[in-house]
């Protein structure tokens, strides 16, 4: 598969770009909900528009009302989401939870997928248990209890957890804290008893929950996939999320970079456009190079997931790490080159820096993925 967009993908990119700029723009969405102090951190109306565009169920197979598209196409939408800093549950619901539900029973699919496709439901994923992403260690336990399970433990950094109708929760049903085996994924409905959410606003104005499970009773049919065999589903969901986050990160970096080059062409100091200063030109050209490389890597990672390629895991981590480093560079250079006004809330460039921080941390920062690249490479 060539590493550029084919005709269909280019059409999708154009559609997504236009839609997101018009409906998902910073003024209309991010600032609007932020300044209102919205408890969701995103607009349900926009989510329904996502559904009308076919985005919400784009990775759901056609038998369940979706479009049966792949990571490459989701990445195209995510790049536009990133570029416009559009707050939405797309990554967690339509990419990650959808990936997990792909392994679920027909009953479970029938229960949750229609709402997703229609843009009525929002899903969240509960994996992390500490401030740094470490999915190898799962301490939240689900013990057999009658016909079902009883869930005990705590999760953190559950993005949009409080807005979610259903949470995909990774729990341990057997084995030790860091074992590969013994993981089970559960679809936990929002109204489950003995589940307490403590939602907090994050630096990028999104909401994330600390969640406590204090003996949450779950039916046996809440299990996604096989009992004790959830690691593979979890890994697939994480890969989908990481590749998606990489694509979104390319958008964040690209948006920040475009704002910055525009500013270089407008702002005058010392009687010159600041874009005329060679030191800034070279730094901008360097960011451009890095950004192109990051974009290619994100596309490649998505394609490899779609092809179920052998080294997909490695390249997904490479993409998450590379995009992480490059987006950080792009927002840092963006704020610095904007000078004083870059520090003001009135200008958007700071919003890119904030979003990069949260997105970069989500599902493993570049330190995590650099370490993973080394491990996967055998050193």
């Amino acid at each position, binding site marked *: 598969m060539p590493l550029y967009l084919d005709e269909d993908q280019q059409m999708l990119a154009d559609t997504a770009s236009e839609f997101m700029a018009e409906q998902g723009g910073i003024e209309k969405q991010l600032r609007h909900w932020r300044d209102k102090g919205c408890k969701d951190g995103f607009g349900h109306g926009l989510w329904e528009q996502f559904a009308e565009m076919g985005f919400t169920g784009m990775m759901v197979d056609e038998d369940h009302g979706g479009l049966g598209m792949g990571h490459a196409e989701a990445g195209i939408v995510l790049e536009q989401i990133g570029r416009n800093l559009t707050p939405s549950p797309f990554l967690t619901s339509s990419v990650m939870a959808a990936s997990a539900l792909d392994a679920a029973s027909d009953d479970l699919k029938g229960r949750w997928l229609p709402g997703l496709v229609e843009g009525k439901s929002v899903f969240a994923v509960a994996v*992390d248990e*500490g*401030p*740094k*992403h*470490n999915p190898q260690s799962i301490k939240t336990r689900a013990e057999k209890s009658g016909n079902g399970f009883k869930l005990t433990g705590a999760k*953190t*950094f559950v993005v949009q957890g409080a807005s979610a109708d259903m949470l995909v929760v990774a729990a341990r049903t057997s084995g030790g804290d860091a074992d590969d085996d013994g993981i089970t994924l559960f679809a936990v409905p929002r109204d489950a008893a003995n589940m307490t959410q403590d939602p*907090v*606003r*994050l*630096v*990028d*104005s999104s909401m*994330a929950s600390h969640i406590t499970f204090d003996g949450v009773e779950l039916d046996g049919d809440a299990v996604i996939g096989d009992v004790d065999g959830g690691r593979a589903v979890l890994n697939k969901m994480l890969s989908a999320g990481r590749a998606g986050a990489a694509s979104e990160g390319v958008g964040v970096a690209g948006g920040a970079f475009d704002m910055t080059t525009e500013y270089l062409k407008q702002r*005058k*100091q*010392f*009687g010159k456009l600041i874009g005329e*200063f060679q*030191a*800034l030109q070279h730094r901008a050209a360097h960011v451009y190079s890095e950004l192109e490389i990051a974009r290619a890597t994100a596309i490649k990672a998505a394609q490899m997931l779609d092809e179920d390629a052998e080294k997909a895991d490695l390249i997904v981590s490479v993409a998450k790490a590379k995009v992480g480093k490059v987006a*950080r560079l792009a927002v*840092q250079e963006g*704020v*610095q080159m904007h*000078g*004083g006004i*870059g*520090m*003001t*809330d*009135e200008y958007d460039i*700071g*919003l890119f*820096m*904030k979003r990069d*921080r*949260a997105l970069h*941390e989500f599902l493993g*920062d570049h*330190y*995590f993925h*650099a*370490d993973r690249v*080394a491990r996967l490479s055998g050193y």
Partner: protein
Amino acid sequence: MAQDLDAFRAETREWLEASCPEEMRQPVDGEGDVYWGGRNAEFKNEAQKAWFEACREKGYTVPDWPKEYGGAGLSPAEAKVLRQEMARINARPPLSSFGIWMLGPALLHFGTEGQKQHFLNEIARGEIRWCQGYSEPGSGSDLVSMQTFGEDKGDHWIVNGQKIWTSYADEADWIFCLVRTDKNDKYRGITFMLFDMTNDGVSTKPIKLISGNSPFCETFMDDVKVPKSYGEGIPAYVGEINRGWDVAKYLLGHEREMISGAGNKERSGSLGPKLARNGIDNPVLRAALAEYDIDALAFGCMGEKFLDELKVGKGHPAQPNMMKYAGTELNKQRHELMMSAGGSRALEWESEETSGGTPARSWLRTKANSIEGGTSEVMLNVIAKRILELPGA
């Protein structure tokens, strides 16, 4: 000499023990704990008041200023002992102000005797809170291109224009302000004026920063009448008319020196040992911390060398620019790493556990370090020109 200092140290220790309330021996935890003085100042609590007043009586709000201007007239060595002894008990500064940090040094260097008597005493006693009017929307790095204009009306000027990045202008009583008084001379057409913020035509508008705080304002001047004198021997400007750029340059250098010196402590400390208390599981993050610690501890050595050389007048006069550049870039990196080590917890913007998002807000605040007081780019230009003497720089 050393004996005298020992005596002074003992005396100081005793005085501090008696005068500095327990509550004032805690690290400053946010803006609320800083006493800025001024007409509308209120003390946060009795302890703050008592501590300020005790210091004011001793001249310890500005310990190294001459006694006749409200200081304690301490020698550099004595002032250092006082600093050390205050640091030993974690004593908070009794009074913070741009009058102390900025205007004071300018007046001590350029002011008339009348100005010193009048303004320095006010500052030392915390009666007047000052703000600084330098930057304008179109004049950031290129400060000298500023446009705020004072029309000469004989015994007064009529000032029109707009300043930006005036720290706490909405809470300040007076402003020291660069005003163009000759449009035909870029450098020799600026006057360093002092005037009351309650004058007609002065208004301010806070600027909300990405950190969510608003320590800076836009300040508008709309036909503001500024008299040329505030009485016998007290001109309303520092230095000469049209020679305000000399004062401004002096203060910029002083500011960079202060940033270079003052910021040292935090910036030159290693970070790894602190963060390691919560564990550093990731070996790549550990490596990044080690690389940072090398840079930070090395910068600490440079800070020491810089101050040692400053004391004896060694070192290149443009060296503060290098210190400002290296120190601020380092501090940004420090906060990047603190955020990375903090993980998702450090992303929180409003939670109690983070005291209202302190890590994230502090991180965002540091991004201004390499912009305010001269951008890193301007610092590099200055190094290239004045130290390396590269052509056309």
